[in-house]
């Protein structure tokens, strides 16, 4: 052993001995200080840019703002306004519809795709890359391309439909349809990243189960529903929790596709975070926006807690 290592291990056995005496020796102190020094830059950044703003948001939800950053305490006014805001009700409904359709939709499609791409077929690497491409594409680029695909008069989708004599609807300028068109794009965009996680989950399933099932004469559907899905359920649970948290916060795709659109479309698609953005930066009601953010935090926390309680029922940890 090298001299330095001997020294280190001596110091550590000293430390162990000293721990029994419940006294922090100088040696341990030095180690602690080094540790804190190493993580100091990251902790400072986290504290200043993440933790502190959370407390600030809670504080600001009790204030009213004027122009250019002047604000004053207004107690529970913002929360009372929340209860009577029709825009908020609409935004909550839209967010709920989006979450209920996009999360199960994208998880279901991703599982199927992952199962299909878990085989050793020729070109499987290419297919996996193609499916994963939307995850590495700029949301602005995705929005721009889909806006043109969806264009009611000159878009590619309606053009193809017209070739088979179907008059395509106004995908993103019809207020009734716009939200669902957005959900389709969101599902398409999330297949890739979900699929990668499910592939990892699938490959961790021991082949012993599949062999046993084959011996028992199970067909592919039975294998999928009785073996694959239950053993994949921890990954599904993780994906559901994470996807729900991010679905409740849907903003970027919506903003890029519908900002500047006719007000009717914006009203029928705006989500809670979009309402937050509108209030915080366009209408300059930063106090009210902070209250919206707090409300969203409570909702997501509640949903996540419920999910964790429910996991005992359907998640099988092997």
């Amino acid at each position: 052993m090298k001299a330095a290592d001997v020294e280190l291990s001596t110091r550590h056995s000293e430390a162990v001995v000293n721990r029994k005496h419940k006294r922090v020796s100088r040696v341990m102190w030095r180690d602690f200080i080094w540790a804190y020094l190493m993580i100091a830059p990251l902790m400072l950044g986290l504290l200043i840019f993440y933790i502190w703003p959370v407390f600030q948001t809670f504080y600001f939800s009790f204030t009213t703002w004027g122009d250019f950053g002047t604000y004053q305490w207004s107690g529970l006014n913002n929360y009372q306004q929340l209860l009577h805001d029709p825009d908020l009700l609409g935004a909550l409904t839209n967010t709920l519809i989006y979450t209920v359709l996009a999360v199960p939709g994208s998880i279901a499609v991703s599982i199927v795709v992952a199962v299909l791409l878990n085989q050793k077929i020729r070109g499987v690497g290419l297919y996996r890359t193609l499916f994963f491409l939307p995850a590495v594409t700029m949301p602005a680029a995705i929005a721009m391309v889909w806006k043109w695909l969806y264009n009611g008069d000159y878009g590619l989708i309606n053009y193809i439909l017209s070739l088979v004599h179907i008059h395509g609807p106004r995908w993103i300028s019809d207020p009734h349809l716009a939200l669902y068109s957005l959900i389709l794009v969101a599902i398409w965009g999330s297949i890739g990243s979900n699929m990668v996680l499910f592939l990892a989950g699938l490959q961790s399933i021991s082949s012993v189960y599949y062999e046993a099932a084959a011996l028992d004469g199970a067909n592919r559907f039975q294998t999928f529903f009785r073996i694959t899905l239950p053993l994949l359920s921890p990954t599904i649970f993780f994906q559901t929790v994470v996807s729900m948290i991010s679905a409740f916060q849907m903003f970027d795709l919506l903003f890029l596709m519908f900002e500047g659109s006719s007000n009717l479309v914006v009203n029928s698609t705006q989500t809670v975070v979009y309402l937050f953005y509108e209030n915080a930066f366009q209408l300059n009601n930063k106090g009210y926006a902070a209250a919206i953010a707090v409300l969203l935090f409570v909702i997501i926390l509640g949903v996540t807690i419920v999910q964790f309680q429910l996991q005992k029922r359907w998640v099988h940890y092997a």
Partner: protein
Amino acid sequence: MKRTFSLFSVVMLLALFLSACGSSQSGGPVTLRYAIWDKNQAAAMQQIINEFQKAHPNISVRLEVTPSTDYWTKLQTAVTGGNAPDVFWMNGPNIAKYASNNVILPIDQQIATDKVNLNNYPASLVALYTYNGKHYALPKDFDTVALWYNKTLFDAADVKYPDGTWTWSTLEQAAKKLTNPAKGVWGIAAALDSQENYYNTIYQNGGYVISPDQKTSGYDNPATIGGLKFWVDLIHNKLSPSLAQMTDTAPLNMFESGKVAMFYAGSWDAIEFGQNAYTKDKVDLTVLPQGVKRATVIHGLGNVISASTPHSTEAWEFVKFLGSQRAAEIQADTGTVIPAYNGTQSAWVKAFPQFHLQYYLDELAYAVPYPVSKNTAAWNTDETKILSNVWAEKTSVDDGAKQLAQQMNQVLAQEQK
């Protein structure tokens, strides 16, 4: 040795982190940030900057272009965060808000010291950028609105080109002849745009948007409602694309693709039409058709200095140059916008000889100032929200206008407090 190196690296990391937080300029050359919102004007602004930098070697200016839909949101956030650009564009709807909150510098002292002659600019523009008796900006340009038409489509439908004799009914009749559903062509685009579309027809019908004392809304006035009805009728009679169609595809793009035969456009669009491959040889313009009377909305931008700039002397030098005759000539020669400096406008008319740009200047005789109040943005939002439903034919014009008048009066009442 290992310990010293580790300590050194941690200290360096911390120092790097802390230095990234603040940036300091230790004297020497000054850099100004100049924020604008029109990419079509970026070339002319850059030319002005280049000439300014030659004359002032120790000042360099960085041009920042933000799309107009995001400009005010981004600017407000920047000002609140203490990161405002040193010099930026200002318009009529926002001058009162920025001046009353003291986030822009009054320039009376500098004007007096450097003997800038305010008579070189139209009096109404100088007044527009005066607040509580103090001047905040040197006028940059002014704009009016005209009727642009597609000569090819007019020829194909065998309709005479629009001219100064046109009235609202002439336009409607022409639009009927020009609309061709089989070819996907409409007579005119009834865009939901205040400055370029419905403000003009409101005044042409004898109505008004806001009372002269800025205390009451004009939207419940029957003449105003008539001005709005002009556009809704065009949509209703299918002479214009519907609001949904104009949401999918911008009316400007429709005009530039030969899908609409007529388009109301501000003088700032001349350079866009002059450079666009389709429109540059197929379109022309004339004065707006007459309603009960002739009217067009006139507005103009100004250049202001941020109150938080660390380089107010250099910023003033730049603003002074931006308001000079030379800068006006550059704007005119490139056909970018109609400059505000007296006597430089004729160069702009000659910039695109294929267009009769002179009509924009002829309209000055009956131009109405763009309607503003202390917090214009608040009721502008109401306008867009409520008139969207009217344009989409979900609400009748009467109901929508009365609702808008009510909300606008509430906002105006708040301003008085």
